[in-house]
């Protein structure tokens, strides 16, 4: 597995290694950045470890599958991104009362402050408070590994789910981790289901029991080896930074840079329920407290609340006082600025000359926007939709969804809306029923294949049932491309243990008025089909057989039998046209400024030939064999 006893692991790999050391028998997940590599790593090692690793259809199902394992005595882990917990929360806020089983269950949730790879910014920790379950927030890769065993033990003892929260900078950062031994026990499911796995008729009494458990957990947390407590009790007028998660590392660095010996640090890992005695001595020993955490004032509110209950006082600063921003990622500069504001430490003099040079250089920089990969069929779909929209005089709304095709918002604003998984077809259903109130604009929803299975089916059924007037375009490239090609129920599989579910059959069984299937590389047919289908009234679905060129290349390697695509300079109309580079904009098409002609970057081109039909002058062609 790992040759050395020390390894350079990402936070996510460390969570995975922790699962192996803890003896997790079942791991379930739905891919989502920045959480994907946890289950991905375990999936890769599953033959070796014997662990059952499942890419579930969505996070709620994933959590349900994991709960089943836990009930039957198999240690279970469920990993997901922030938004995934929104989906799973309905089940979570029942499971907390029903309880997990003898196997134990840890939920690893990876938040994405700043929304690097997310449609929103959210702090998922409030779910731990909503569900009244223990919450652990490791600060280093080492803790990420070790916390899994700790969390699982806690879950087994109290029979409640335990939540571990990570953020992008922990999940995606590497650090040195001392490895322990892989668990030697191979979990065998029990034959007996725990009794009373439901909350009725007295859910309020279950709630009462849960709160009693949480009191015991809080007392336990006072002895947690994970919390970094200041080594010596200092006098009552000193300042301290209280942090959790990866923010502890920023706080440590800021304190190091400032170099003030009176400033100490409390790094909490057990952040819900708060360890009461620890917080009591914090409040007793420090008159000034600065909270450093990502993203909301979760820890801060907890300590402020506890201080009020205990009748203790301190000058507390954080997101509530505007001392640090309550949005975006944490970093060392933010902590430094807060320290300077609070304790008026001498700031290193500003190097004005350097700052001037810096701003001058900054002016030279141009952005590097994201775009579709060369040959991506999603570009063709939006190109076609744009053509159709123009033909309809702009009377076309495109409700979008979550996946690589979300980049449609940057592609000439070809996608008009984008919220949660499956919400494209949901809101399109809402727009589609407005026809009866006189809406004349054509409505289209777009979703990918993995998203279809994840959350589109109820929206689709709702739209069917209510006879929404819309066209649902499903971009089926057979994989969860955005997160690195995880399989989903529609993926073709050679694995005997898995069955393939056909999107087309699901759609047909719901009963569409019209169903079309198109090749995503064939632009003229895409345009014609979209135009015909969109302008017909009814509830319609178009399945686009799409190709993820990254995945194709991975499968096929570099070998390509097709004739290379070229631009013939004698036919290219030059600056008066530029449709291929300025409008279609495949990144394998470039512009020769000296000759004012388009040309193909052969090292980028995948040879799909989609652009051939984009050129109105037939200048893009396949090179004939000599």
């Amino acid at each position, binding site marked *: 597995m790992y040759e050395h006893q*020390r390894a*350079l692991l*990402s936070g996510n790999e460390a969570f995975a290694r922790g699962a192996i050391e803890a003896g997790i028998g079942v791991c379930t997940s739905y891919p989502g*950045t920045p959480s994907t590599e946890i289950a991905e790593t375990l999936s890769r090692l599953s033959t070796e470890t014997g662990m059952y690793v499942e890419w579930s259809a969505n996070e709620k199902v994933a959590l349900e599958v994991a709960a089943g394992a836990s009930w039957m005595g198999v240690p279970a882990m469920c990993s997901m991104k922030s938004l995934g917990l929104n989906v799973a929360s309905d089940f979570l806020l029942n499971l907390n009362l029903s309880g997990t089983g003898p196997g134990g269950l840890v939920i690893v949730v990876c938040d994405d402050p700043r929304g*690097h*790879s997310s449609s929103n910014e959210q702090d998922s920790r409030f779910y731990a408070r909503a569900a009244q379950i223990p919450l652990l927030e490791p600060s*280093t890769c080492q803790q990420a590994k070790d916390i899994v065993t700790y969390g699982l033990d806690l879950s087994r003892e109290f029979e409640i789910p335990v939540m571990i929260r990570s953020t992008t*900078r*922990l999940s*995606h*950062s*590497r*650090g*040195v981790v001392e490895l322990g031994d892989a668990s030697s026990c191979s979990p065998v499911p029990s034959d007996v289901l725990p009794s009373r796995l439901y909350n009725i008729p007295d859910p309020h009494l279950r709630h009462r029991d849960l709160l009693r458990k949480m009191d015991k957990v809080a007392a336990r947390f006072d002895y947690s080896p994970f919390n*970094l407590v*200041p*080594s010596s009790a200092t006098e009552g007028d000193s300042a301290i930074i209280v942090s959790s998660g*990866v923010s502890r*590392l920023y706080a*440590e*660095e800021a*304190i*190091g*840079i400032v*170099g*003030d*010996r009176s400033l*100490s*640090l409390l790094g909490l890992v057990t952040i819900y329920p708060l360890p009461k005695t620890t917080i009591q001595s914090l409040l007793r020993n420090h008159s000034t407290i600065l909270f450093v955490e990502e993203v909301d004032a979760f820890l801060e509110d907890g300590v402020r609340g506890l201080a009020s209950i205990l009748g203790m006082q301190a000058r507390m600063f954080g997101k509530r006082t505007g001392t640090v921003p309550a949005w975006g990622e944490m*970093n*060392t*500069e933010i902590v*430094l600025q807060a320290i300077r504001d609070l304790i008026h430490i001498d700031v290193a003099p500003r*190097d004005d000359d*350097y700052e001037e*040079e*810096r701003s001058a*250089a*900054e002016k*030279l*920089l*141009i*952005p*590097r*926007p*994201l*775009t*579709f*990969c060369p040959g991506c069929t999603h570009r063709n779909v939006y190109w076609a939709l744009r053509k159709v929209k123009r033909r309809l005089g702009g009377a076309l709304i495109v409700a979008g969804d979550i996946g*690589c095709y979300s*980049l449609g918002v940057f592609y000439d604003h070809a996608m008009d809306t984008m919220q949660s998984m499956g919400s494209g077809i949901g809101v399109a259903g809402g727009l589609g029923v407005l026809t009866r109130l006189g809406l004349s604009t054509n409505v289209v929803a777009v979703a990918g294949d993995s998203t279809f299975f994840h959350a589109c089916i109820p929206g689709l059924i709702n739209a069917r049932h209510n006879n929404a007037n819309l066209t649902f375009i499903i971009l089926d490239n057979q994989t969860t491309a955005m997160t690195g090609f995880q399989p989903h129920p529609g993926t073709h599989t050679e694995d005997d243990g898995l069955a393939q579910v056909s999107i087309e059959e699901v759609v047909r069984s719901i009963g569409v008025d019209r169903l079309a299937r198109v090749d995503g590389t064939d632009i003229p047919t895409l345009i014609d089909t979209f135009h015909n289908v969109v302008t017909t009234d009814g509830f319609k679905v178009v399945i686009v057989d799409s190709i993820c060129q*990254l995945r194709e290349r991975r499968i096929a390697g570099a070998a390509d039998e097709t004739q290379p695509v070229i631009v013939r300079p004698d036919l290219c109309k030059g600056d008066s046209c*530029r449709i291929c*580079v*300025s409008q279609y*904009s495949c*990144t394998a*098409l*470039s*512009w020769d400024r000296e000759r004012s002609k388009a040309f193909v970057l052969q090292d980028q081109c995948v040879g799909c030939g989609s652009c051939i039909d984009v050129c109105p002058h037939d200048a893009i062609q396949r090179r004939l064999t000599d």
Partner: protein
Amino acid sequence: MYRRMSPRRHPKEADGLSQVAPFNIIVAGVGGQGNLVCSRALGEAAMESGLSPTIGQTFGASRRGGSVLTHVRLADRMVAPLIPRGHLNLLLGLEPLEGLRAVVQFGSRETVAVMIDRPIDTVDTLTGEREYPDIDELFRRTVRLCHQTYRVEPPLEKLPSVRSLNAYVLGIVAGLEIAPIKMEALEDAVSRIDSGLGHNIKAFDMGVSHARGLQPLGLFS
């Protein structure tokens, strides 16, 4: 074997707080350039050299042509995954625009920059919406922001493949001896990331030998 590791001690040494200022490297480039592999090799070599690396990766955009920035921090323990502004020791720019972008954000008068002179278009420069900045001006600006700037023209025709550019840059790092990492350890790490064709090791060796003739740009060159 390195010249510029500056183990400035922070005043505070108690409570397990950071004792030695980390040596900070950024690998800046564009998706698809092997940025993450490059930083991983640096990290593993640092481990072999007795240091504890922390690697902060930003790869949300790595597959879709966006900027990719990796922070490699060499210290005695895991430290914050992001380098504070103005604390960059060594910049490895796999692409000049992205190199300068990182210098503007993190650079200081102590930064040593190694920048590959091979611009990669953005979507906007391809479509003609924007002009790619003047390449000489990019380097002039880098020189003014850094202690030393090496302008590296990669021998693209001689490299085993474009994809081995990252290994070539690591060779330059080893040859110039500008990081607190043992050259043999870096070579080992590069050989471990090799595809089996020996491309990376060959590119690494080329980098090492080309580094011998390299001189940093002067303010007026």
